[in-house]
């Protein structure tokens, strides 16, 4: 991995609220799901930023809002020197060559009516990047690159296993030679034995093409393996962001501590002695999130301050950011 400090993607105070409507004919907005509520981070060229959190905390929404698949409610997304949220459709189309996505569900993310070759070659057609013959050659290269037999090109997705399908999805994402890829839980739908293969493939491709990943996952050990830095999300906000080692060895935020204590240790003796921080209650509704600190309703150390003001996202150690009043 190259170790430069050029920021490729910067997210500033990104907000994504989904309105809730009521009424059949005359609809009015009665509230909003605060899926992502003001998050900021940056991703440096060539690195992998892991984004972890439990289901429904807004990780995937963050990824999609960055790619402008959803129109963000507020905030800014800078990619290279372009601000994406204000781009027009055509301008955004051009930027899409540079940023791609790998999807979670390898069954739902491939059009069952298109052959593998058509799927992997579609980005080239959409951007009229090559002639039909070149596309065919490029598709063969791509399939080989992701470890599939190029002769599979005129087969349909339903003839492949989950891991192979995920490779097809990766080939599609690579077709336009992007510099940034959002990996939206690319391995969580796969068998454990296949997960490692796909992660290693992503690793290899990153080295080969100096790719930058935003790696969304809920599996902490997998994120630890692939990421350089890790951000922890809870209910639409980032609670902690740090280098991998720093975060895993010395988590500051009580939520991160609870999460890490829940990771099983593949050693029966150590596993017995593992102390777990058990969180009580459920994640509050993102429609009506708690005041102040989002985590205070389940936090073991919360007090009055936490209900009054939203904790600032501050740097407690170089490169280690935490949003907690108690740190």
């Amino acid at each position, binding site marked *: 991995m190259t170790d430069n400090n050029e920021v490729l993607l910067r997210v500033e105070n990104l907000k994504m609220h989904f309105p809730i409507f009521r009424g*059949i004919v005359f609809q009015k907005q009665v509230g909003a799901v605060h899926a992502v509520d003001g998050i900021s981070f940056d991703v440096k060229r060539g690195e992998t930023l892991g984004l972890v959190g439990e289901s429904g905390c807004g990780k995937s929404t963050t990824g999609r809002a960055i790619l402008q698949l959803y129109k963000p409610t507020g905030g800014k997304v800078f990619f290279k020197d372009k601000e994406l949220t204000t781009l027009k459709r055509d301008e*955004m189309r051009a930027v899409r060559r540079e940023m791609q996505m790998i*999807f*979670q569900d390898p069954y*739902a993310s*491939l*059009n*069952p009516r298109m052959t593998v070759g058509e799927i992997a070659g*579609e*980005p080239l057609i959409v951007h009229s990047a090559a002639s039909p013959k070149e596309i065919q050659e490029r598709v063969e290269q791509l399939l080989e690159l992701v470890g599939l037999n190029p002769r599979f090109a005129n087969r349909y997705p339903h003839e492949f296993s989950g891991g192979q399908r995920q490779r097809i999805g990766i080939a599609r994402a690579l077709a336009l030679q992007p510099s940034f890829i959002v990996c939206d839980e690319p391995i969580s739908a796969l068998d454990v034995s296949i997960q490692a293969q796909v992660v290693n493939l992503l690793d290899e491709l990153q080295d080969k093409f100096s790719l930058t990943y935003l790696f969304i996952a809920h599996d902490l050990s997998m994120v630890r393996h692939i990421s350089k830095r890790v951000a922890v999300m809870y209910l639409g906000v980032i609670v902690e962001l740090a280098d991998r080692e720093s975060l895993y060895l010395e988590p500051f935020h009580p939520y991160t501590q609870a999460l890490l204590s829940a990771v099983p240790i593949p050693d029966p003796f150590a596993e017995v002695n593992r102390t777990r921080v058990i969180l009580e209650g459920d994640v509050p509704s993102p429609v009506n999130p708690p005041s102040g600190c989002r985590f205070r309703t389940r936090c073991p150390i919360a007090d009055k301050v936490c209900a009054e003001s939203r904790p600032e996202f501050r740097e407690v150690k170089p490169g280690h950011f935490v949003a907690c009043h108690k740190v």
Partner: protein
Amino acid sequence: MANTNEVEPKSVGARDTLLTQKRESLGQDAFRRLMRNHAAVVGGVIIIILILLALLAPWIAIKPFSEQVLVDQNKVPKWLVSVFPSLEPYAVYSNDYPLGADYVGRDLFSRIIYGSRVSLTVALIGPLISIIIGVIYGSISGYFGGWVDNIMMRIVDVLYAFPSLLFIILLMAFFRSPISDIQPGTFAYSIKELDESLGGMFFIFIGIGLTAWETMARLTRGQVISIREKEFVEAARTIGASNARIMFRHILPNIVGPLVVAETLAIPGYISTEAFLSFIGLGVNPPTPSWGSMIADGAKAIRTYPNQAIFPALALAITMFAFNFLGDGLRDALDPRLRGTQ
């Protein structure tokens, strides 16, 4: 000649041929499954025969459909008496008419053959109208969603509640009434002329078109919405595909199956609507034969000459069964959950 077929390209090893062989497309796969469904094949064959009958009617029918031989009124062929013994006291035999003659001495067989033209035209026009209007309307509504969807679907709701049958009856009462005084050169007159030139089928098209597309629009909308949320559509957005490309390459190919099935299963409905309108005397203009109007004629003498109502009714029933069987077979063949299974 037979020997040349046996010269095959040299085998390259089982594994290799498996990989390089031309894959069968999903359409071929569905066709293969359809062919294994005997009821559907029978239905399909009957429909093909019907289409041939309708196209070749002038050569198959033994008499012109409107030729009246008044001396042959209600004549029956000999074999019919063994099927309908109740005919015996009234029967005047004549083997010139395979299924008998009607109350003005027209050949029933020829009229049934010609009657298939009306039913099949309706079976063609009905889906055409509902697919053209319904699918376009439903796709726009489902794809764009939000207030566009809301307004478009409320319009459909209103039209759905519209008493279209009553409307058709009113239209016909207005345009076809012998005492209505429509001046030549007006718009109403040209509609009247159009209706007459189509043998009275124009208003049947209107009647079917008014109601058929709404169901189709709703179905299409629902299907589009369910596909629109799939990840592969999102993937297409991520690579920068245009709305048109997403619609035509990603969404429509995935919903075409349910739409075809729904439309095939709706055809018997169109046919029976036409038969019903003709039965109550609001369908095709006499002497154009339609199974519905023939049943109506035959019903008046059903106790004495049951053949005059039963044969057109049988033709109608067989046609509707055939379309239903084919529709059922298509549904099974195109159901994605069954794809790839034996």
